[in-house]
């Protein structure tokens, strides 16, 4: 069975500090991968997606970047955090022929102070 693991579960970081969030999917070969961001009490906004290793497409510009170093791994990062980066970050995966269904991880809660 497929599993999706996000790390860390939560982070408290200072403004201006770097950030790296990770996501690993096991049990699926060549999944499409996504990063979503959810402001506190808000809806979800897609940030990035990737259909293959080394290829990442940006959907919105939030001074964040993403990379896919391995087929099963998706990394979200920035060199300098802003207060506006606070929120809940969700990784998701989908497969071709799955009626566009996305499956989400448990998320990482980020507080920028």
């Amino acid at each position: 069975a497929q599993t999706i693991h996000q790390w860390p579960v939560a982070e408290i970081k200072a403004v201006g500090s770097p950030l790296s969030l990770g996501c690993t999917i096991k049990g699926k070969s060549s999944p499409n991968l996504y990063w979503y961001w959810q402001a506190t009490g808000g809806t979800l906004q897609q940030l990035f997606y990737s259909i293959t290793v080394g290829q990442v497409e940006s959907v919105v510009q939030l001074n964040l970047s993403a990379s896919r170093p391995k087929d099963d791994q998706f990394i979200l990062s920035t060199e300098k955090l802003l207060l506006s980066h606070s929120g809940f970050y969700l990784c998701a995966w989908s497969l071709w022929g799955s009626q566009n269904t996305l499956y989400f991880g448990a998320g990482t809660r980020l507080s920028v102070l």
Partner: protein
Amino acid sequence: AQSVTQPDARVTVSEGASLQLRCKYSYSGTPYLFWYVQYPRQGLQLLLKYYSGDPVVQGVNGFEAEFIKSNSSFHLRKASVHWSDSAVYFCAVSANYGSSGNKLIFGIGTLLSVKP
């Protein structure tokens, strides 16, 4: 442009009562429609989805939704709610990036509170 409207930010019902959470979408093509649930401090879990066929789709935990094309709606229903159904419910529509992945567009969510 694709969009999803959930007109009710908050719904409160008594345990055992029936439930309807409203969702309307705007999409020029054939929509893929979803309902997800988010329990406190957790990720999203898929409740059900519609992409073709019978407009009434069954999901987990007794939830169902009906796709009404003429009304551009995809309302979520449950005959009898339980206190454990308290959560935020998101309606979403899928927009393809052509052959390169897909994008889920979410509504703002409806917070369901079930009174014991």
